[in-house]
């Protein structure tokens, strides 16, 4: 019996030795650093001044008019605190629900820690109706009810087309405002056998949108149970000029679009890509029989807006009508896009989705 006890004890002690030999973490702080404002905290001279930096030249100036052009300028506030403190700078659009949040732990704010390029932290964009948005700027401090606020007027929207943010190139296919270089998506081609099911598409729908004034609405009932409700496309399917995209690796090019889901089951938005394999000239309608057509299906099973990004490599040839191009994924040859509303995987349903800001990016996903 004693040998059993000794054996058992030795097993237990061995376990404890293993316990003590475990690797421990070297981190000193978990999460973002912060600190509370002490009782005698103050903003030095109560100064909270707004500045502009011209994006192209870097020229900096004050903004006494409080009018901010976020298309051409960066914007920042400059202020100094009596103590190092945790702070949060929140810019909130009055009209579009857009919100941009900066936070930090320091005794100052300037262009090094809160430079705003017009982007947002949520799924909405600033600059509603281009020149008709204003925003509240509110600076709050950790552990304190004290705050400073300001109001600015936004005279433009942030431009994404042909811009590079964080090393990611952006090509705006359509924001449904009717002013896009690549042309706008067509009106909705409804499955004729679904007519009577309240089917509609509206490429200038202004009640639900995350950017600007309009989104693209797709809605209807799949009466004939063939899953297809309708589709739309860029005008000629050959609307993006050759050499626009440099990326040849389909894993490094992305299609990004904002989709608003309403919770209707089986709602699927299919994104269809067309490649100009036959090297048609610009403006010549794409011959679908001699060029590749690719499809990617998005199950819209959420409610509200969501940025959906996927790799070009996720495109597949459809079961039929895939075209006879070179049968390879050539992202650099992307020449046009189409969108389709489906009742999938179960046919026959009442389905609905809204799309805004269709952007193709290279070297990363959409940078808000």
């Amino acid at each position, binding site marked *: 019996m004693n040998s059993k006890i000794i054996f*058992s004890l030795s097993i*237990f002690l061995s*376990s404890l030795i293993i316990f003590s030999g*475990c690797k421990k*973490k070297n981190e000193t702080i978990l*999460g*973002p650093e912060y600190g509370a404002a002490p009782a005698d905290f103050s903003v030095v001279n109560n100064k909270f001044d707004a500045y502009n930096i011209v994006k192209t030249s870097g020229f900096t100036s004050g903004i006494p008019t409080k009018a901010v052009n976020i298309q051409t300028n960066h914007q920042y506030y400059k202020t100094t605190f009596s103590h190092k403190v*945790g702070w949060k700078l929140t810019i909130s659009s009055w009209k579009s629900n857009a919100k941009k949040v900066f936070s930090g732990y320091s005794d100052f704010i300037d262009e090094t820690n809160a430079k705003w390029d017009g982007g947002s932290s949520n799924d909405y964009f600033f600059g509603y109706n281009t020149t008709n948005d204003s925003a509240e700027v509110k600076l709050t401090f950790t552990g304190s009810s004290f705050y400073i606020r300001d109001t600015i007027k936004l005279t433009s929207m942030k431009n994404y087309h042909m811009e590079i943010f964080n090393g990611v190139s952006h090509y705006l296919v359509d924001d449904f405002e009717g002013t896009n270089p690549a042309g706008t998506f067509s009106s909705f081609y409804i499955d004729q056998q679904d007519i009577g099911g309240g089917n509609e598409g509206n490429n200038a729908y202004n009640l639900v949108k995350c950017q600007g004034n309009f989104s693209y609405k797709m809605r209807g009932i799949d009466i004939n149970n063939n899953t297809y409700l309708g589709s739309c496309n860029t005008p000629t399917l050959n609307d993006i000029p050759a050499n626009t995209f440099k990326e040849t690796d389909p894993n490094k090019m992305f299609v990004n679009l904002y989709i608003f889901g309403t919770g209707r089951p089986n709602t699927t938005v299919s994104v269809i890509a067309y490649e100009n394999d036959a090297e048609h000239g610009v403006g010549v309608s794409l011959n679908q029989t001699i060029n590749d057509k690719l499809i*990617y299906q998005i199950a819209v099973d959420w409610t509200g807006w969501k940025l959906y990004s996927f790799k070009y490599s996720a495109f597949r040839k459809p079961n039929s009508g895939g075209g006879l191009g070179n049968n390879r994924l050539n992202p650099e040859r992307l020449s046009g896009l189409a969108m389709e509303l489906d009742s999938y995987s179960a046919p026959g349903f009442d389905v609905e989705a809204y799309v805004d800001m269709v952007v193709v990016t290279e070297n990363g996903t959409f940078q808000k």
Partner: protein
Amino acid sequence: MKYKVGYIVFVFLLSVCSTSYAQVKFNFNGLGRAIVTSNKIGGETLKGDTLSPSKGLSGYTVFDLQPNLIINNNIKANVILRMRNPFGSFYGANTLFSFRQFQIMGKIGKVVEYEIGDIYLGGGMTSYTMYKPFEMNHEFESDIHSQRRSVAEYENFVSGNLWRLQGVQGRSNFGFNKGIKNLGINIFAVRTNASNEKSIPDRIMAGGRIGIVQSEYLAVGLNYVNLLDVTVNQDEVEYSNSVLTGDVKLTLNRDKFLVQLNGELGSSNFKNVQVYNDSTVQYTDYVTEAGIKGVYKPAKVKLFATYRSVGAQFSSPSAQTTRMNVDQPNSLFTRISGNAVFRNQNIYDRLTDEQSYNRSISAVLYNFLPQYGNITPYGDATPNRVGISVGLGSDTSAKIIKVEARADMFNEIIGEGVADKRKYAAYRGGLVFNFGDLLKINRKMSVNTGFRQETTTRGGNAPIDFKSTLIDLGATVEVFKQFDVLVGTKLLAASGNEYLSVRDQFNLLSDFTAYNLDLKEQIISLGLRLRFSERSYLTGTYNTSTYKEIQSNNYNYNINQWFFNYTLAF
């Protein structure tokens, strides 16, 4: 859909087996319950508010019928057919028929016990691997409150620290003559989230335990749980989180005393791949526990001490998912302040609301309210804790008096948002005195009291000083044969400041929200109970609940409720 398939299978089994097997046994059990409540809300917050509902009469009748089919030891099956009728509907209008449970179980080759369908998980596993942590110190709450809690627990399939999920489970035990005494194996696989067959993958949880009893002195075990996505063609996220621990128990059991040493060591591995942009978040962390327990049998007294270190990024969803969801809107008087603001959860909601329980495993830690438990809101597996627990109490064989006192002293391992670490202290305990047993009068007569006090402090740049105290008092007196008078109260006071953590999709801290509170809560309950059997009874209780945030009239209200409950279990 899943229940339709289950029902068809069950009916098929029933019809085939009942005609084919002469020895088939078939029996029923179930539960019928009728509940009626009359509710009223008032107080400063409701003054002048003509939009928020302030009165209500509600309730329901449920009848759960469970046919059990026992073909032989190899195949048994049961379902629970539920009929639920809301209070106030006539002639069966709005009656809901549903299947509440589907189970097939039995033995394969006299060696493996199996269960398929709705199963309980966690039996025999540890509090770091598969465990539903308790939400507050209600072990010593009054009879009137624990009976009320049991209604919500029944509706949510709550059974101790077990999780109720849908899947398959197998158990086997092997006895040996040499080397070891016994080898036990328990494995399971369940699905916690269904695929949309396109972009969202099935999420399954699989694991088990191997336990070896080497002798009366030594037992060791290995526990493993993996929560992971089964990849689909267009998935957006590929998630996996595995937890592996080993435990050892050394026991010396003599006539007068028992001494037990125990330890557990393990690690978790979190991985989240964002497929669309090829980014991966991955981290590993550890858990260690070592403890000693002693029982002096003649005095029926036990003592214990436990050291615990749970890494800051230790991730074990099946042991860290909270019992209650504080973000779930309350069923009772959901909105206040002009019907515009969701009423915050209080202890009365936590006691009574059938909708506030979590029913599945979450990959991200849920939010919690510090006043209801700040030290270990996610149970023993609460991440970022190191410290000791010591306590003493009555042995489980004590019938007349059940008493326990316990102290927990913990620190954070790594500061959250600041270099300074929180320090936690908790003192809790309670007493149940069955004086009916002491007087040998064969009547149910008991008094109880429970106490829990927690303090959280931190110095430095973001100081914290938060304290909460919870007191339970109650009594049950059987004045006539099987007719009881019940009284009970819960008092909660919490004050100070804290910072609530905000976590991102990777379960990492992404922000902190300042939280200031000066709160007093109280429930006073009085009732009568007529018992027909151990599980069948009729109760009528009056409950008054007060929630008062000092210095804020926005949250200063009281809820009064009449509650009638007729329960018949067979």
